[in-house]
């Protein structure tokens, strides 16, 4: 019974973590006030990337669905937001909500066929989906074709406002993940990731559970797309539907730590920082990113955050193992 109570007690470190997060949030909120526009741009991109990475991690790290088609949801969110603002003259926030809704609707429509694909085929399927959409948008004259569209300049929000919106999105994506992971849904997702057959026999509705993750992922990604459209002011299919959005999220999550909450945040920071440091050497940048990715996969399969956790566990488990050993010898003495 004592053991049970110990397990039910809230994590002692949770308060420390919360305090740390609040300090971090305060600093980030002050960036536009104290920092320059360069810092603002850097952290804006960081927020977008954290959101994209969390969305991708929800699928890959917690559900076992490796998607290479996040650009489809990003692009649909961006284009819908932009077109609603241009065609219907809706304000940004209303358009953004519609953009996210369009992204979720699209995910719902493609979920049935795409979930029939497993493993690598699912990955290829999602990639083809995003590519097909990109080519469609390039050729669709109504949406400006390859030139894309310009968002109404007169109602454009100031960069700082968009910075805060992106901050809210990043924070929301983290909170959503925390909530999911502490819910029945999170339990089901991880069960599916680890053993789909066993999960099914434990009563998990595989399709519905996967679908929930897929829709939430599409929602976050679509929102990120809509915000980025407003930030860019002009969007065109090549960059908006580019596979790079997915790949960046993928690299961030793998480097940071797949299936962890902190991993994507850490990864986004490292990847972002590296990008800025090497901005004048684009070729070397890619090579170094590649090397880092390979090195992480080879030496820290759980990502950098996974390595930190493993180290932490090693240190604390050494301690608790000694404690247990002490207890046992005590019990034997009795």
């Amino acid at each position, binding site marked *: 019974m004592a053991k049970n109570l110990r397990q039910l007690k809230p994590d002692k470190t949770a308060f420390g973590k919360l305090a740390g997060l609040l300090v971090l949030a305060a600093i980030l909120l002050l960036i536009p006030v104290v920092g320059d526009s360069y810092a603002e741009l850097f952290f804006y991109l960081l927020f977008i990337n954290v959101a994209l990475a969390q969305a991708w991690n929800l699928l890959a790290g917690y559900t076992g669905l490796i998607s290479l088609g996040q650009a489809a949801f990003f692009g649909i969110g961006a284009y819908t937001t932009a077109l609603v603002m241009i065609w219907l003259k809706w304000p940004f926030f209303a358009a953004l909500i519609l953009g996210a809704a369009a992204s979720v609707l699209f995910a719902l429509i493609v979920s049935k066929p795409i979930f029939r694909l497993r493993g690598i085929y699912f990955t290829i399927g999602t990639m083809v989906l995003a590519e097909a959409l990109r080519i469609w948008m390039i050729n669709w004259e109504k949406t400006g074709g390859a030139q894309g569209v310009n968002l109404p300049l007169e109602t454009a929000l100031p960069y700082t406002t968009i910075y805060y919106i992106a901050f809210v999105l990043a924070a929301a994506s983290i909170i959503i993940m925390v909530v999911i992971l502490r819910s029945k849904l999170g339990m089901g997702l991880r069960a599916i990731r680890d*053993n789909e057959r066993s999960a099914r026999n434990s009563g998990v509705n595989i399709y519905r559970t996967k679908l929930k993750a897929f829709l939430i992922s599409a929602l976050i990604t679509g929102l990120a797309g809509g915000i980025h459209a407003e930030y860019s002011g002009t969007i065109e299919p090549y960059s908006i539907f580019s596979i790079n959005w997915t790949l960046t999220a993928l690299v961030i999550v793998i480097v940071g730590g797949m299936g962890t909450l902190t991993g994507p945040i850490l990864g986004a920071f490292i990847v972002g920082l590296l990008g800025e440091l090497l901005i004048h050497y684009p070729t070397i940048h890619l090579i170094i990113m590649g090397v880092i990715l390979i090195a992480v996969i080879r030496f820290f399969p759980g990502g950098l955050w996974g390595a930190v956790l493993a180290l932490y566990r090693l240190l604390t488990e050494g301690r608790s193992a000694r404690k247990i050993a002490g207890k046992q010898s005590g019990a034997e003495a009795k």
Partner: protein
Amino acid sequence: MLRLENVSKNFGAVAAISNVSFAVQKGEVLGIMGPNGAGKTTLFNLIMGEFPLDRGTIHFEDKPIHGLSSHEIAAMGLGRTYQIPQPYRGMTVVENLMVGDMFGGRHASLSRARRRAYEILDRVGLADSAEKIAGSLGLLDLKRLELAKALAMNPRLLLLDEIAGGLVENEIVVLRDILEDLKKEGVTMLVIEHVMGILFDLSDRIVVLNFGQLIAQGTAKEVMEEPQVIEAYLGTAHAQEGRDGRPATGPSVAAAMPAGGAARGAPSIDAGPAAAASAEAAAPTGFAATAAPAESAEPAVAGAFAPAGSAAPSAPAETASAAGADTAASPGTARAAASAAPAVSVQPLLEVVSVTAGYDKFIALFDVSLEIYEGEITGLIGVNGAGKTSLIRAITKGIPLMGGTVRYKGIDLATVEAHKLAELGISQSIEGRKIFPELTVLENLELGAYNKRARQRRKQTLREVFDLFPILEEKKNQLGTLLSGGQQQMLAIGRALMSLPDFLILDEVSLGLAPVVIDQLYKAIVEINRRGTTILLVEQSIQRCLDTVHRAYVMEHGRIVLSGTAEELKNNEEFKKAYFGV
């Protein structure tokens, strides 16, 4: 509570389950028995909705569940375990249980699920590992977890698939206690189990499957008296014995053979024991010669068992003439010649002395000793998970020894590198017939001749293999994948022979093959032995094995529990009881 009616399922041309009907009452424990490949696990898969039925219906508490998906069936209160544990490897042990509790029990409270999970973990003895990642557990704990996961669903009907397999004695005791408690609590159970003790003690009733058909049901005692059940487990000869109520002597079976045997399409099964008995009489067997070279009583004793054969040399001829031309093909008769041919030495070819070995966290062999003499066929018998394959791996350096020695031709194999074993003349045909599917039959065989000595004699050996298995010559340019199961087994043995072994290890030769094919293989095995190769034959099919080998060792839970000549084992009451249940 659960009712199956005319359930059938085919996989391609294979009828995995045909026309099975039975019912389980509330609070009842129903055991499911059957040889390997009988369709037991498939039945569980069908109940749980993993595959659609071809025909028939399944009702749970009078509601049809066939056609529902697995998660719906699970949520109705059916919990199952898998023979091979299926944990959520990336989650902690306690989380593994919480999944089943929350989804199977349809509630969303994590703290409640966690509390219940801890109660169950306490019960199965896993509480200390509760916060460990499931993937880090050893096999035994995974087996416990498998049961705990099913219990966490709070099931009204538990489907248990071989949860005792691979456990050692005292763990089986713990498991039995848990199951008996559950039974007292009124949990209805369907139990597949190879550990007969548990099955018999626990089950109120037993159904027996063979080749996908339900061949018997009733209490443990009732089903074990069914001739069809005895036949499924032992082969026809013992069934005959059971029916007649007296031992099948040489002449009686041989006389009965031509009519009945021909009708069955596999006459040599019937003739087997009789012929074997004669064979024992016919020649001083390898064992007799080794263990007691001067013992002249041996032929006489065997002679009494087979009244027809009194004079040693005349016995094979008599058996052959009595049983007709068919018997000439039977293993037993061929054996008679086999045992006479090779010279027998007193020094064992292979000595296993007090070997303890296992895998990472799982000891599979405890203090195992055995001796194999040159020119003999030695049998290694035991149920699934008894440690037979592990012993082979320990001999062939597939797993490291934790204690003991293996000596071959007087050489301690610890000093020999694994890939040098072939040069010493040890060759094996591993379980599962691991042939190269992308290579032709001929290429597969030629790959067998990898050592220098074998390469030089390659053409000649190939000829011998083709003589042994003519079908391989016919199909020599076909890909390995296109062969039938039996042909693949022949190819696997043929490939092992290509390395010109002095000592050949054959693991589960007959597994999953039709009787007629098994006959051909056994004929070949006897012939290989006759040509001078010492053989270690690992078998689940006990009757088949005892009819062929000179001596046999019986394994149980990683230990040798019994050994002796084939005749001794056949007449050993304890052995008969343990393995044949008669």
